[in-house]
């Protein structure tokens, strides 16, 4: 690494209005970091105005080079010309109407100088309208490979090592419309370190018809993205397929659960009865019924850890419902959710362990399959679900740990909410998930020592998630694994100061949540 890394800013140009192009170029010229070159690749613009503007711009600074293509080749071909001509160690992608924020290159330089293994970095971004007003700040998570399969979230500003970009073959015109997603998937597959600068260093200009105003403006780009993610899954040897996601610009990665894998669903209970949707129910019975109704996977057992006060009729009903899939485990001590989970684990026989609260009701099909299948990826340690209150508002959209303490993302949000930049509509990495519904491998549960029994009621799942992440594995929130959680929304939970102190003693006080900008 040179002491002064050179950044090659690559900007394909096509019929760009001169004033807009000039603004884009100015945003590079004002960078305090002097180590840059700007490669403007004109993709044979028919506009005489653009051609004249490029001539003027070329004369502004010796670091500006204009490459003129003889034929119109499209965005990938033009970008590849820039990549081939780049003299810098890093390539910065800048669209012909967008703006770099002053100081952007200096911050990128600082990052790559501090860590020589960074091969790819990205920053937060916002949008800018025709009047120069910025809006729609996208506070991005730290590197989230699963999310990146579901959404091209790194987008702007993207900086990659030039050699690596060339090694992976540069931009592929077969993916035009999603050529950046395809290239960055390839780059990140090989990158030693991927770095996120959590600052807005790029303004994405919105003009009618531009992708910034909504991915649905370019359906062909969406399909190109599906192909890019499919190709990535094949290259990385994952048993999965890609398809369009539920929202424009998002993708869905479908994995199959090996039928031979045995899944143990551990449910601690006291056999409580109550009302849900205006009708009486025994919660644990309905929880088991809902799992069976929404699961096709046969190799399943329910390990119900019950207090001795549980009515025998409840146990009988469970037996009728689950038959030989049911294992009843008595528990005779004072309430301790963590210990009950551990007691259940010790008696379970599954390769995969699902912890499930008895006051839940699964509402999405393929429940066990979808919740458990991502654990086939060795890098994934724990998965969790989207939980709703009885009134349909969100109870849990993943955990977030920050200066305000430990909490649930999107608590109380409307059921139709898609979340900050669609994060309630995709799979994504999170800091933690609730133990009310989560899945883990048997090996990992044993390795981390299960749930901490020193925390019988609150924050045991926070500690559990910290332990999972301490092993280097990621935790995934799965938006399409959905349940009702009949926990009283208005109840003031009894949280003791000592419980938080216990967690902080082990893991320190949380600062900023690296996966949740919201």
């Amino acid at each position, binding site marked *: 690494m040179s002491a002064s890394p050179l950044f090659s800013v690559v900007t394909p140009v096509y019929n760009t209005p001169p004033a807009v192009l000039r603004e884009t170029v100015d945003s590079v010229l004002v960078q305090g970091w002097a180590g840059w070159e700007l490669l403007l690749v004109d993709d044979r613009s028919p506009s005489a105005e653009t051609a004249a503007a490029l001539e003027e711009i070329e004369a502004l600074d010796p670091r500006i080079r204009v490459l003129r293509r003889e034929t119109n080749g499209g965005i990938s071909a033009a970008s590849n010309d820039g990549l081939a001509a780049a003299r810098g160690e890093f390539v910065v992608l800048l669209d012909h109407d967008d703006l770099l924020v002053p100081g952007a290159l200096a911050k990128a330089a600082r990052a790559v100088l501090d860590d020589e293994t960074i091969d790819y970095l990205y920053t937060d971004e916002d949008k800018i309208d025709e009047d120069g007003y910025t809006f729609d700040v996208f506070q991005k998570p730290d590197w989230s490979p699963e999310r990146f399969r579901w959404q091209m979230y790194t987008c702007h500003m993207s900086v990659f090592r030039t050699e690596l970009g060339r090694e992976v073959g540069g931009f592929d015109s077969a993916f035009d419309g999603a050529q950046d997603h395809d290239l960055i998937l390839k780059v990140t597959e090989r990158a030693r370190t991927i770095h996120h600068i959590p600052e807005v260093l790029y303004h994405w200009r919105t003009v009618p018809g531009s992708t910034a105003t909504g991915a649905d403006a370019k359906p062909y780009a969406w399909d190109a993205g599906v192909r890019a993610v499919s190709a990535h899954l094949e290259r990385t040897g994952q048993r999965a397929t890609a398809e369009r996601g539920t929202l424009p610009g998002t993708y869905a990665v479908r994995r199959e659960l090996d039928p031979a894998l045995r899944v143990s669903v551990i449910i601690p209970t006291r056999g409580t009865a109550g009302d849900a949707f205006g009708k009486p129910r025994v919660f644990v019975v309905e929880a088991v019924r809902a799992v069976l109704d929404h699961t096709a996977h046969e190799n399943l057992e329910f390990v119900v850890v019950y207090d001795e006060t549980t009515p025998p009729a409840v146990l009988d009903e469970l037996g009728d419902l689950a038959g030989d899939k049911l294992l009843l485990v008595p528990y005779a001590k004072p309430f301790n959710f963590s210990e009950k989970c*551990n007691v259940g*684990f*010790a008696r379970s026989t599954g390769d995969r362990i699902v912890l499930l609260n008895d006051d839940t009701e699964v509402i999405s099909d393929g429940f066990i399959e979808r919740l458990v299948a991502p654990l086939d990826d060795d890098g994934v340690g724990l998965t969790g679900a989207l939980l709703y209150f009885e009134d349909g508002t969100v109870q849990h959209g993943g955990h977030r740990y920050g200066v305000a303490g430990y909490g649930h993302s999107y608590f109380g949000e409307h059921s139709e909410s898609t979340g900050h930049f669609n994060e309630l509509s995709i799979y994504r990495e999170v800091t933690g998930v609730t133990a009310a519904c989560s899945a883990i491998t048997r090996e990992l549960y*044993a390795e*981390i020592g*299960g749930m901490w029994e020193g925390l019988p009621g609150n924050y045991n799942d926070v500690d559990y998630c910290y*332990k999972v992440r301490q092993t280097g594995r990621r935790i995934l929130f799965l938006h399409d694994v959905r349940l009702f959680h009949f926990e009283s929304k208005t109840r003031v939970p009894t949280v003791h100061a000592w419980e938080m102190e216990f967690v902080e003693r*082990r893991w320190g006080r949380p600062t900023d949540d690296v996966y949740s900008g919201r």
Partner: protein
Amino acid sequence: MTEPADHDANVLGIRVDPDASIDELRERCAELIHEQLRLRDQISGLTAERDELARRMEAAADVDHWSLITRIDELEVRLRQANHLLADEKAQRNRERDEVKASNSWRIGNAIVRPVSAITGRGRGRA
């Protein structure tokens, strides 16, 4: 082949009753797995606590006390400024309220609304 001299002990120190049923042995195994979980949790937790303490020690060693004191002073000044601004804002609002209440339009409006309020009961108890 010789029988072990003592069925109650083995190299792991685990006591096994030779007459135990399969179910009892399974239960014993489960208890051992459970105990193993607790111990692994302790190891995990103690390792985390040790690392956290080391991090705090390192952070404490790096603390520049003078810069902290300077920072406290800066924050103190900003707090005082904020309190002044707040007091000014309150005074300004009070003045504006008094001006409105002293105006003719307020007096006329009040004279119209008061009888209605007396009938409907709205506004009762307000200053």
